[in-house]
């Protein structure tokens, strides 16, 4: 789900408001848009592709990231050039920056892959 809308990079162009297929954002007069209906986000990454300012990061999780998740840390993600990664990958980002090198490691993720102990019920 969308986790970061970077207030520094956002230019208030409201493209995300227009293109989000599930109407997650609301435009705000004289300000940047707000994520008004987070629970309607369907994790389709379209806003990340369409945002011309690379201000958006959509976490791959179809449920909200918990507090403290590295995928909610906008500043850290921005520093690693990960905002707008999808825009880069589909060739919509102008310039040659590639973000493939600086990826976060979500260590928790692999815990799920650990086989259960012997004798666990099948």
């Amino acid at each position, binding site marked *: 789900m969308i986790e970061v809308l970077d207030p520094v990079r956002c230019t208030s162009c409201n493209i995300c*408001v*227009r*293109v*989000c*297929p*599930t*109407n997650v954002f609301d435009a705000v007069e004289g300000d940047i848009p707000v994520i008004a209906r987070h629970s*309607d986000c*369907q*994790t*389709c*990454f*379209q806003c990340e*592709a*369409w945002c011309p300012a690379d201000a958006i990061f959509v*976490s*791959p*999780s*179809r*449920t909200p990231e918990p507090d403290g998740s590295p*995928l909610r840390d906008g500043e850290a993600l921005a520093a690693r050039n*990960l905002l707008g*990664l*999808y825009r880069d*990958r*589909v*060739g*919509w980002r102008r310039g040659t920056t590639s973000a*493939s090198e600086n*990826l*976060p*490691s*979500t*260590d928790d*993720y*692999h815990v*799920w*892959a650990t*086989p*259960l102990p*012997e004798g*666990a*019920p*099948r």
Partner: protein
Amino acid sequence: MSSTSSTANRLTRSARIARAPRPAILQNTGESLQLAADVLVLGGGPAGTWAAIAATEAGARVVLADKGYCGTSGVAATAGVGHWLVPPDVAARDAEIFPREAQGGYLTDRTWTDAVLDEAWYRTELIPGWGYRPATTPPPRLFAQPGRRSFAGTAPDYLRFLRGRTKRGGATILDHSPALELLVDDDGHVSGARGYQRQAGRPWTVTAGAVVLATGGTTWKSHSLGGDVDTGEGHLMAAEVGAHLSSMEFSNFYGMVPLGTSMDKNGFFIAASYWDHHGDPITYRNLHESRAELLAASLRGTVTATFTQFPPEARARVRAGMPNFFMVVDKLGVDPFTDRFPIDWVQEGTVRGTGGVHVLDHDAATGVPGLYAAGDIAARDRIVGSATGAGGPNLAWAVATGTWAGRAAARDATTPAAPARLTPTGTHGLRAPRATASARGGDSWRDVVGVVQGQMHPIAKAAFRDEEGLAASGSLLDERWARPERLVPAAGTGSGEAIRTREAAGMLATARWVIAAARARTESRGMHTRVDHPRTDPAQTHRLLVGGLDETWVRPDPDLPVTGPVPAGAPGPADVKEAS
């Protein structure tokens, strides 16, 4: 004429796309938007845009209304899929269609498959001449064959392009304008629709000589990639004016995703290696046809996967071929070529399943005067049977049926009556015969959505069915259907709340047809696994029609499947197999 000059001719023509006349504006105020058109298209994915393009090519005044934003809305816009293209050549068609007949449980119809492939072949040929230039070019296919052509509907370029092409043809696009109900004239001819513009905060009405439904399948909001806009109210609208459905038992296809994500791009999953929660390898037969082996393992513990099928030298090409999938695993820090990464499932309902509104002919007519259905809302059983239509067939179907529906709607469009002379047809989710102020609205749509998802999403219920479970699910759903007053929007039928209640009604209606059809098919075939009827019954080699609102009904489609001669030695429709 050499091929070079014919290409040049195509490019020259592209500069001049004829623009159809604009729809008439009857009212455009803060209170409401009212337009008059020849053809109204509901839904702006591939089927809707191809329908609108075909209708404008015929000179019709066209309005296309999308629930979200035409260009990002729906599964094709977000996932990106290649078209199933086979040249009009008998040998090539035989070679391609025969294995799919077996995979589809011999429920398919070759005459339809041929017609769809013909239309998709000629229509997609036009796209480069229309100026389509995707930002990334997919790498050439690994096994390109002479005479074959491929056309990838790359996300997010393809639908953005189709939006532009639709507008250049003269259609008016209404974004964030979900349709709520169809309008009919005194003769029962479908003559438009009304809905709500959720960002402008006003109701809309479009009168039209014909309506094309292209609102997609339904996943009951499982958070599959791009699928949450597909909630079944289009199916409900069709049934409210008398349309039938087909093959709704084949509505339980699950996509595998990196655990917890929405990324159900399955092109590389279908030949991957899998292990159960003990680390023992899982064998499978054909993941296009059934995923029962993996789904069963997922009920016992977390399944892991690795894309072992790709040698190191192929991986860069594989990554380039599916940027959205690799964007997701890169964000997760997973290397799918070498890691055993955990997976789970999202229900893809009738999007990857094949059930939907029954279309009668190669006009994509529903049998209801003035109403056509195209793309995933229409049953794709004739081209893929009991197997999934994802990964090409659905997109070929969308191009073909969109084109057919758009052309036929433009041809048959009558002059619609004024809005005030038309009758709205919506039932559940909008109005109820005995609605009272005290029983209305509130959050009761959430209860309905929860109950529907509780029956349609769990693998234990929807992937592995038996009479007892289906009957129990059916009772719960029928109880909700019997209380329509709880789905009446308190703020009125011309309100944003009506979008929520109508979606809930669409999800509930489609779920009830699924249960009715799944109970009637007392065998296992393709994605439909009946634990209490594990074998395929040759006597049930037919499609099932389903319909009805308060009382649902199921009966065999009198049009029997049309499959080709079975090559010597190959298993055919009469062979009984053991379901896995």
